[in-house]
């Protein structure tokens, strides 16, 4: 069962005491035009996902944690030990690389035994330990197989076993599911979730896929342009996205503005009526499914939020059609194929969009 650590929520960047368990890092890496500057803390048992678009600096952060990319500044402590200057080979860190990087000339067993061997175990002991790990991963019969004969899911598990066999205090996973096809992915994601649940130290995974992040991690850290833009539980972030990127990820229309009672006056221009009563800077969000489209201005509608738009693009989204609308308020709307046909939607067509106040969600910025 998942062990939920009982600990007060730490604010990022707060230095922990020297005996504090888990990860306490402030990673600063300067690389010419790009600068990574993120704080990251996690208690043993935590699974933290670094989520962000490509080029946000997630992999750089992971490499910095592993010691493969040197820190320009900041700090890195694991279970109270300063790792800032520790070479990667001496860090109690295990890494599952994006395409696994299993050594092609070694069998699955020898791949897993490699770490224990390097950390001083005898040949027989290392292989026994490796066999145990493969057994645990359900790969006992593939011990003698070379990586190129393993399926994607098997290779992923061997990579995980290889990383875990050194008993790391910090497990790093770089896009652990990206190399898999959609069908295998589902199954491997569930397995990985079980293995991460059983892992007693800190795990940090990097992904650009929100679903992977939400299924696998207890806590999400959203990184954009080298900075943390939001962090929290998956549910929290899904409900209260703070950037366009996250909103798009979780499938919400998100706007920023100033709340005055039940109205949020958006920076972009129009106002949105909400049910929440707020004042000051605020976000307002609503899902694309809450938007109703009309060819003519709706008169009998109870919706208080009505905007004139034009269709900017259409794409199939499951059994629905998602319309990207431009105009007073850029937004995304989901509708059925039948509705789309009735409305005669095509790029450039004028439409009216309406959203009920009850379906919006406003929260302080």
């Amino acid at each position, binding site marked *: 069962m998942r062990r939920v650590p009982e600990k007060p929520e730490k604010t990022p960047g707060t230095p922990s005491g020297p005996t504090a368990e888990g990860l306490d890092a402030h990673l600063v890496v300067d690389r010419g035009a790009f600068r990574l500057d993120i704080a990251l803390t996690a208690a043993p048992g935590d699974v933290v996902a670094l989520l962000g678009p490509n080029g946000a600096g997630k992999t750089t952060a992971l490499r910095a944690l592993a010691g*493969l990319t040197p820190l320009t500044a900041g700090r890195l402590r694991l279970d109270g030990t300063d790792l800032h200057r520790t*070479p990667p*080979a001496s860090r109690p860190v295990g890494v599952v690389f994006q395409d696994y990087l299993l*050594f092609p*000339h070694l069998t699955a067993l020898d791949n897993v035994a490699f770490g224990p061997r390097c950390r001083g175990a005898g040949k027989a002991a290392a292989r026994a330990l490796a066999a145990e790990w493969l057994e645990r991963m359900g790969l006992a019969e593939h011990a003698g197989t070379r990586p190129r*004969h393993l399926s994607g899911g098997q290779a992923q598990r061997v990579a995980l076993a290889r990383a875990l066999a*050194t008993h790391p205090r910090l497990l790093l996973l770089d896009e652990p599911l990206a190399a898999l096809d959609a069908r295998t992915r589902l199954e491997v994601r569930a397995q990985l979730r079980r293995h991460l649940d059983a892992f007693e130290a800190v795990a940090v995974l990097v992904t650009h896929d929100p679903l992977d992040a939400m299924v696998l991690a207890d806590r999400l850290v959203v990184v954009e342009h080298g900075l943390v833009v939001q962090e929290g539980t998956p549910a929290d972030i899904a409900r209260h996205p703070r950037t366009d990127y996250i909103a798009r990820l979780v499938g919400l229309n998100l706007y920023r503005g100033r709340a005055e009672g039940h109205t949020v006056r958006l920076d972009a221009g129009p106002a949105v009526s909400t049910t929440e009563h707020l004042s000051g800077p605020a976000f307002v969000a609503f899902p694309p499914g809450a938007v109703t489209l009309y060819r003519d201005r709706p008169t009998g509608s109870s919706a208080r939020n009505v905007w004139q738009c034009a269709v900017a693009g259409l794409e199939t989204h499951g059994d629905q059609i998602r319309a990207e609308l431009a105009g007073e308020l850029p937004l995304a709307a989901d509708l059925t194929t039948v509705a789309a046909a009735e409305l005669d939607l095509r790029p450039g067509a004028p439409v009216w969009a309406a959203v009920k106040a009850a379906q919006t969600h406003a929260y302080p910025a």
Partner: protein
Amino acid sequence: MTTGRQASRKAHPRTPGRGVPLALLVPALLGLAFLLVPLLALLLRAPWRSLPEQLTSPAVWEALRLSLVCATTATALSLVVGVPLAWLLARADFPGRGLVRALVTLPLVLPPVVGGVALLLALGRNGVVGQWLDAWFGITLPFTTTGVVLAETFVAMPFLVISVEGTLRAADPRYEEAATTLGASRFTAFRRVTLPLIAPGVAAGAVLAWARALGEFGATITFAGNFPGRTQTMPLAVYLALQSDPAAAIALSLVLLAVSVAVLAGLRDRWMRAV
């Protein structure tokens, strides 16, 4: 590899008629002919009748043995220092790396005789380094079998370094990183991960270096001189035989040719099977 290759062959069956375009085939065959005709001429003009007599001369076998021993030792020496050098050029970051790479390839363009003179000036009894070897350890290298090995190494090692460096550049350096995160030192990562990964490139480089060392003439005769059984390798014997007895020279060339072909074909088979 074997199963992998078979699988890919099944996936892309060879279609007859859709093979080689003429624009490639014609120059390819011309190139092949250019390489093979001189060898064919050697076979055609060989003194087949006197061949058995030529080949029973112990001097021939002495030269052949010396050639094989020296070329193999030179290749081993090239491997021991050349592979690390290639690694340095491919993986380490240091100022002037481009210049060092250019310098490493210099012996490729240097006429071998000039290489021999350079070795004499460096390692000779009176050479920049050689005079100290002589004074401190009583070691003189010219006119010795060691000298032959050094001359061959000087000429052959660049081939190995270039070949291995190319393979290293093509190899994914992240495997070394993966090994590092598992606790391997950089040397362990090199020995247990990188080296097995680049083994085919190292083997190809070693074969190239061996072949070059086996045929080495200019640097050897200039640096190590010519003394039967000690420094007279096959190419030297061939050259000197050519002065007085062209038939004997052709016979010796044939022996050298046959042995090289046998060794290279043998290595190729074994190497193909191993990978």
